[in-house]
């Protein structure tokens, strides 16, 4: 298809971080005049790869060929000198400065005295050509997110970048802005720019990419030209095709008649991040409801609404048959609801406190003695040991500050603490993330055992294998809505994967 030479060629890129192999012998080519989508789940190694290309990370092994010569990219400075630019998810504009000043700051060889007029004319000229119209004199804080992104792209163009890397550029945009961005990218392609564009949304890839590289588990699962690509094929590459079918034999019939532990009726939320829309959901005793979705589609918001941390903007929340829409976090937790959060170090663990003190925070009322004047540390320790044993984990050192534990041990502490209260309802976000195989298996067994004893569970995970093997029912979240619901045995990974990435059910 390409009879031109690649502009940049990465060969055999391997990059490991402590504990994980983020990139494993990755080959990746970028041609001039193409939009190259880099597709994959979170943690598939996309970000690491482009960060190697942009000089933020250095590859352990592998080479980078730029044009006809081998290059070393040791820093973003090196990358920019070669004409490689990157737009990050977090924009880097300085709010108080105007567009002109923000662009000027980025230009190489900035003169001591700035002629704002000259820069403004260049901005207007370039932005006119590619449909990137912004007011050069507007202060950055006044720009919408879409306009800020345009300025970020303008910065790269004016700094004479030829390879533009965009890290999930559509994540922050509303639909019509996404269309606008795609027109901009198409214009850049016509002028011979190379665009590398990271995403995990299938429809976008099929709309605007010329070539698609799918990553999975740190390796390239395949590179396709668009004509060859189908949703089904891409989903297969993204998620793999072999799924462990463990656990299905452990199922026992759900007690359909039992009163639901949790009911959400048409719940809406508003606020920062993703807003939930019309979420209707029930969890019965002895049932695991799995939530599939690419992270950032409302999973955290769903957990926060159930926890009572986020107030509903509409709809009703019923816990154990009682209207809990306005209950406090404390009241919800005391009614027997446990939460395993997505980021325990930030959301559950208090780093300066010891393991034992963190354990006591699960239910300080329970451990208080003499109306709270003292704490029954013996009981705390007993519960810590008991819960650890049930999870088949090794005992964590009780006196050590929790902040000094490793990531896996923080996750263990999170599980040990939350499951110690013998909850009736468990909301678990990515409960096996960060655990080794043995720990992950133990955690899954425990969640299943608690289900079999009658607890209801909401299991939010990015691991489709885990969701399929554990869940009694699956729902799919996409942009804050439930876009699909099925029993694992009645659906396929392909179907769920397509719904997760914005495809339409049944198509």
């Amino acid at each position, binding site marked *: 298809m390409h009879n031109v030479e690649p502009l940049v060629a990465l060969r055999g890129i391997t990059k490991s971080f402590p504990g994980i192999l983020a990139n494993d012998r990755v080959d990746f080519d970028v041609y001039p005049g193409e939009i190259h989508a880099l597709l994959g789940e979170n943690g598939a190694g996309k970000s690491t790869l482009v960060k190697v290309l942009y000089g933020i990370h250095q590859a352990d092994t592998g080479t980078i060929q730029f044009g006809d010569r081998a290059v070393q990219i040791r820093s973003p400075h090196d990358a920019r000198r070669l004409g490689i630019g990157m737009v990050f998810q977090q924009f880097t504009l300085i709010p108080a400065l105007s567009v002109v000043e923000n662009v000027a700051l980025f230009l190489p060889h900035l003169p001591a005295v700035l002629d704002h007029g000259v820069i403004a004319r260049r901005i207007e000229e370039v932005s006119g050509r590619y449909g990137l119209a912004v007011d050069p004199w507007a202060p950055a804080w006044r720009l919408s997110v879409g306009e800020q992104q345009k300025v970020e792209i303008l910065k790269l163009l004016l700094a004479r970048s030829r390879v533009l890397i965009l890290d999930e550029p559509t994540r922050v945009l509303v639909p019509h802005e996404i269309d606008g961005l795609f027109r901009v990218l198409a214009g850049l392609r016509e002028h011979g720019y190379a665009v590398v564009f990271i995403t995990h949304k299938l429809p976008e890839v099929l709309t605007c990419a010329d070539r698609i590289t799918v990553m999975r588990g740190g390796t390239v699962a395949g590179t396709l030209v668009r004509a060859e690509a189908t949703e089904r094929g891409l989903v297969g590459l993204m998620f793999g095709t072999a799924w462990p079918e463990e656990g299905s034999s452990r199922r026992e019939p759900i007690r359909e008649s039992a009163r639901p532990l949790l009911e959400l009726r048409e719940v809406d939320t508003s606020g920062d991040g993703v807003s939930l829309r019309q979420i209707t959901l029930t969890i019965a005793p002895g049932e695991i409801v799995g939530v599939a979705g690419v992270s950032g589609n409302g999973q955290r918001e769903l957990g926060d609404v159930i*926890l009572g*941390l986020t107030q509903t903007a509409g709809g009703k929340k019923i816990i154990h048959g009682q209207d809990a829409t306005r209950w*406090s*976090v*404390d*009241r*919800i*937790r*005391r009614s027997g609801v446990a*939460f395993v*959060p997505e980021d325990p170090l*930030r*959301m*559950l*663990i*208090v*780093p*300066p*406190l010891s393991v034992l*003190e963190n354990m*006591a*925070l*699960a239910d*300080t*009322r329970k*451990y*208080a003695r003499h109306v*709270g*004047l*003292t*704490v029954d540390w013996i009981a705390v320790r007993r519960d810590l040991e008991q819960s650890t044993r049930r999870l088949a984990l090794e005992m964590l050192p009780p006196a050590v500050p929790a902040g000094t534990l490793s990531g896996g041990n923080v996750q263990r502490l999170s599980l040990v603490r939350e499951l110690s209260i013998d909850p009736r309802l468990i909301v678990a976000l990515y409960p096996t993330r960060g655990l080794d195989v043995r720990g992950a298996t133990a955690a899954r067994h425990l969640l299943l055992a608690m289900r079999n004893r009658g607890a209801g569970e909401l299991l939010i995970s990015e691991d489709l294998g885990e969701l399929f093997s554990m869940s009694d029912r699956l729902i799919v979240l996409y942009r804050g809505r439930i876009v699909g619901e099925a029993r694992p045995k009645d659906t396929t990974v392909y179907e769920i994967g397509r719904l997760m990435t914005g495809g339409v059910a049944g198509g």
Partner: protein
Amino acid sequence: MASAHARIPRHSSARAMLRATGLFGLAFVIFAAVLLAAGKDPIRAYRDILSSTLVDRYGFSEVLVKMIPLMLTALAVAIPSRIWLINIGGEGQLYMGALFATWAATYFAALPAWELLPLVAALGFLGGGLWAAISGVMRAYGWVSETISTLLLNYVAILIVSFFVFGPWKDPESANYPQTAEFVAAARLPTFFGTRVHLGLLIALVAFIVYHVVLTRTRWGLEIRAMGGNMEAARRSGIAIGRYVLVLMFIGGGLAGLAGVGEVSAIQGRLRPSLSPGYGYTGFLISWIAGGNPYGIVASALLMAVITAGGDVLQMAHRLPGSVVNILMALMLFVVLARRRVP
């Protein structure tokens, strides 16, 4: 951990002491240069300050007298700071405490001392506490930052006290002096050993012990430390953060109010507009220097009391303006702030 608030850094007590000592040493060296520039012998000046404060019996008692409001107002800052609340309102809370105490001392003047004194102290605590709780409410509901509101309410409190002493409560017998009538003997806090050292010293020390015990031993202390260590985790664990904001502001303000009680009831014996030479602000400085550590607060309060008393020495023995010690205090603040790296 991402906390949007300025943080009073915390250290182990030994390290905090060492660190504070070094910082103070630096401030003293710079101040020595100022004294030299003014044509004075800094070594003699420091020696005079020491011999008339820590060594001299009367001088030391006066240092203790000054330490009482300083320790209490520093605690008023330290307690809310455990959950990242910045209380700059010690001065106003002190004034409101004094106002409430004066009201109690005047309107229940007929009660015997064993009933009147606890009432005066309780109302003083209540006055300071309620004043701080205003900021606590506004913060708990997310309306106004407590940093701003406590600072601004200082001016309001001082003006309210002025209103009463210039107006309705003015002592008719005191010619044109803006002050209330003298407290009855039953409303005066007892003093010790023929000095001005009063019962407030014991109250302050008890407050320190309670603060320490509550923080390290109790369920509430555990929850406070959880909020201090990770606010997000505390919220998700179901700790009622708004309630703690309110209660800790109230207790802090109450302690500053007790400082006001000591000043009106033991030192001045009546309410005057010039009740405090900025104890509330110095208390903030002390708490900041000590990183909220109880021992550090006592040590810093001692030092600040010595410096304040030293101002009189410099004025009388060295014919320098008494306010010259403000330079030293400013230097202390400066070195304390300078130790923290700008991000």
